[in-house]
């Protein structure tokens, strides 16, 4: 039955960005700017092994030779990389070993975000790896997962404790040379999450990480690596909120998923970074590379609800390398005011009998620009490959824009590719109908938009779905024109 009405009403009262607060904790910062010394400093602070430093330096040298991509349908002032602090860690006497040892102020921040770990430990069965700025401060459920042989830890810990796995899989799906932002991330990544599910193990709980930027002027460079070994299954949730800022913040994450033979990974994101104010001032630049590799009979499913960020540049993709593998992409992207989103997916069919599904719902309001960009690529040996794409755009005002850039490259005549696209304007008749039944305009828009996105929202895990519905309604407050 969806969200409760009181909760929605409460949310609608808070028009300004809900998570616009900062935590006053001493930070241990690197100086501004980027050079080899800074990279050495980051690596040293994180007590990394030599090979990790070499990897970073190599990535940095590659990055220097690259140029920022300009093909996306977004325009923004390019970040000044010499004005960014590339490392910031909350200062604590020593790393917390148990949840009880965690700094009370950090706990307060998490409470404001509605992710009290105590609550979640008891009620949700969700293991949370909370990342605040750059250092992972608490990891729960680790012991329980350990019994099953599941590794779920911060990326820094994994570098130290599981160097063999990191060296084997890191950059195996997104090479350092892949693109400008991926190279940058490889050079300066702060922290992130590593997850390994052993052969035949079905992870019994949703694995969840909340990312949050805190230190003013700190870019954040997350690194996520999820490996599901043969026949394994896991569902991973990623949720983002960021404090309100005047200056722009850069977020260039890399996410790599590896699904071995007959494995399945579900990766769900609710992204709510600060979108900038009503006049387009401030907001997060969300420039993310996300890609998954499917071996034989494997399945990777990306579900995303994108409501935040001033600029979004993001294409969660699937390399369907193994025969009979399956890739899915379900997306809702909402833009309001002056937000710009260029998002979509790539489905690369290499194996035989590979299947992919793309459902994209774009909602544009205010003066925003919302683009779907997708590539379906069928290689010459991919016999009987199948793709279905559906790209729908909903316009809330006369001043916003919706764009669709579907690319298809097919080198196999047995492939079957279907593409459907619609563009519609939110119906005044629909809103009037709701009003006449006593439903307020805000709730009417919430109902209509959630109905429009239902196919995608249904793919989210339960605890995320309700949150996402509320987020959509709040993001589109006062947006009909």
């Amino acid at each position: 039955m969806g969200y409760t009405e009181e909760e929605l009403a409460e949310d609608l009262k808070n028009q300004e960005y809900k998570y616009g607060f900062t935590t006053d904790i001493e930070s241990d910062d690197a100086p501004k700017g980027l050079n080899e010394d800074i990279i050495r400093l980051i690596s040293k602070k994180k007590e990394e092994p030599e090979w990790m430093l070499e990897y970073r330096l190599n990535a940095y040298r590659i990055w220097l030779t690259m140029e920022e991509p300009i093909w996306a349908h977004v325009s923004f002032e390019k970040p000044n990389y010499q004005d960014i602090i590339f490392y910031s860690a909350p200062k604590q006497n020593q790393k917390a070993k148990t949840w009880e040892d965690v700094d009370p102020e950090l706990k307060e921040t998490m409470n404001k975000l509605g992710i009290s770990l105590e609550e979640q430990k008891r009620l949700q069965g969700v293991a949370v790896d909370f990342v605040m700025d750059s250092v992972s401060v608490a990891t729960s459920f680790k012991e329980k997962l350990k019994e099953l042989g599941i590794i779920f830890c911060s990326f820094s810990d994994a570098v130290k404790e599981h160097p063999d796995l990191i060296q084997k899989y890191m950059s195996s799906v997104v090479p350092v040379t892949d693109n400008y932002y991926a190279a940058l991330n490889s050079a300066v990544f702060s922290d992130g999450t590593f997850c390994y599910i052993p052969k035949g193990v079905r992870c019994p709980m949703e694995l969840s990480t909340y990312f949050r930027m805190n230190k003013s002027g700190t870019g954040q460079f997350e690194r996520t690596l999820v490996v599901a070994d043969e026949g394994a299954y896991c569902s991973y949730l990623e949720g983002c909120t960021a404090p309100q800022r005047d200056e722009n913040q850069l977020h260039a994450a890399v996410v790599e998923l590896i699904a071995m033979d007959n494995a399945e990974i579900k990766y769900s994101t609710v992204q709510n970074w600060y979108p900038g104010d009503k006049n387009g001032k401030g907001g997060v630049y969300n420039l993310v590379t996300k890609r998954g590799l499917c071996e034989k009979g494997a399945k990777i499913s990306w579900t995303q609800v994108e409501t935040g960020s001033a600029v979004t540049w993001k294409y969660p993709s699937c390399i369907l390398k193994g025969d009979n593998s399956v890739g899915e992409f379900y997306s809702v992207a909402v833009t309001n005011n002056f937000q710009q989103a260029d998002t979509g997916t790539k489905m690369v069919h290499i194996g035989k009998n590979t299947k992919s599904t793309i459902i994209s719902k774009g909602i544009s309001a205010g003066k925003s620009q919302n683009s779907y960009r997708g590539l379906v690529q069928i290689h010459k040996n991919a016999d009987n490959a199948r793709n279905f794409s559906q790209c729908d755009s909903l316009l809330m005002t006369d001043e916003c824009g919706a764009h669709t850039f579907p690319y298809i490259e097919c080198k196999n005549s047995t492939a079957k590719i279907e593409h459907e696209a619609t563009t519609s304007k939110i119906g005044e008749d629909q809103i009037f109908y709701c009003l006449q039944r006593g439903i307020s305009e805000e709730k009417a828009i919430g109902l209509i938009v959630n109905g429009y996105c239902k196919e995608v929202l249904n793919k989210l895990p339960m605890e995320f779905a309700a949150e996402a519905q509320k987020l959509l309604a709040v993001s589109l407050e006062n947006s009909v024109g």
Partner: protein
Amino acid sequence: MIKITNLHASINGKEILKGLDLEVKAGEVHAIMGPNGAGKSTLASILAGREDYEVTEGSVDFDGVDLLALNTEDRAREGLFLAFQYPVEIPGVSNVNFLRTALNEIREYRGQEQIPAKDFLAMVKEKSKLVELDAGLASRAVNEGFSGGEKKRNEIFQMAMLEPKLAILDETDSGLDIDALRIVSNGVNALKSDNNATIVITHYQRLLDYIVPDFVHVLHDGKIVKTGPKELALELEEKGYDWLK
């Protein structure tokens, strides 16, 4: 229940209602008939609060409240219901979620508690029988893929759920076959009480065989030009409207 006095209204500068008077008391059924373009549906839209129309003169008293001063949703919450001539589809929103949201908004306005889920579902079950609405339709998306007849039955089902003081049926009979007409009419009749009232807008006398009006009004060129008992409808059927012009 409702008293409309000297109502003038226009759209894009063109006057559609030109001094309309109408009073409907609790427990009564009034039929409004008239030729195409007389302003029947305009009257329904203005009472419901559609913004396209501008009221230039006159007043509407709805059970002691100045109806024209209220926005659309508050008119509904005060107990005014419009059964649409062309009900819209809202894909992906289930009928039950839609109605629960509406019902709770109305209850909140009236200072009542939200309806418990169990009571709500019992109510859905009971009221859907009234218009012989398949239980499956209640959980489907609002009007999506409904036949013309199902949409009209759904309107009356919603009316039953929201229990309005005044229901305005805007050409509810259009596009209905005889069976559907009977079902819809039975539903409306079953909901009739001493505390509510109904305005039936129609082109045809046929509907009035099922929903028997206390008064029949003829609307022509933005005014009520004749009022009579139910027999007036038969006379209109026979003679047409020309003799009244």
